[in-house]
């Protein structure tokens, strides 16, 4: 067995294409550079893990704009409406009521006087 190994040595039947190692080395380096760039950009993303993501920033921005718009809409809707003071409304109603009574009383009084006149004429 040792004789066989001694005879063969480290010889193998394997061949490679011409200039194979020069070409494959170039290809390996260019592939590796692409991989390396991708890895580095992944690392940068990993480093900024504590910062809010761009997507979240967008959400914050949109929600604040929406809130401001909602407040403005409420202000716009509520401003033209006249504020009603319940006390004033009550006072006005009471005043009208009193006027109506006094008018009625006056009317009654006039009627009574007219009737009295007619009675006195007889």
């Amino acid at each position, binding site marked *: 067995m040792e004789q066989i190994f001694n005879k*063969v040595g480290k010889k193998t*039947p394997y061949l490679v294409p011409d200039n194979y190692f020069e070409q494959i080395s170039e290809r390996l380096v260019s592939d590796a550079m692409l991989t390396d760039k991708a890895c580095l950009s992944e690392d940068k993303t990993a480093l900024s893990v504590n910062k809010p993501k761009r997507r979240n920033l967008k959400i914050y921005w949109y929600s604040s704009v929406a809130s401001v718009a909602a407040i403005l809409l409420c202000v716009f809707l509520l401003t033209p409406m006249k504020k009603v003071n319940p006390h004033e409304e009550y006072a006005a109603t009471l005043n009208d009521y009193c006027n109506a009574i006094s008018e009625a009383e006056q009317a009654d009084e006039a009627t009574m006087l007219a009737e009295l006149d007619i009675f006195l004429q007889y």
Partner: protein
Amino acid sequence: MLLPHKREEAMRLLAKTYTETIYWHARRMLGIHEDAEDVLQETFIRIVKSIDQFKWESSLSSWIYRISTNECLRYIEDRKKRINADDIEGVTRTLQASEYTDLSDTLVLRIQAAILTLPPKQRAVFNMRYYDEMPYEQIAVAVGSTVTAAKMNYHHAKERIKTLILTGSDLSM
């Protein structure tokens, strides 16, 4: 971490130093040129991805051998689903059919066919010891085992090759 232009320089240096080593290790593990090239590319990408985590606790070459061996073992496991690597006749036919195999020396071809039928870990240990003349300590790191286990693997591999070549019954050349 290195600056981009320094990284490119480092990659070029790595490729220049280790391309042939990784390729021949993979080729002896797998036999076929195209398979070895696939493993070489995968290994190099893995090296680039994890080079920043390399701690210099072992030598760089042991670490690269370890990545390369793991890639080969993974590739063999994948290929097992497609090709029966235990069938020595099939292995020999595959080697003979390959464009990049020298068919002039039958004995050399027979030894390679015998090596390719070894269990993958034994094959890795045998190749690293016999062809690359690595010390057992380094082989143990590369295959992720102990020095004693690596020695045992080498011994069993040699015995199995001896049996296959001397009986010759399993080899149809």
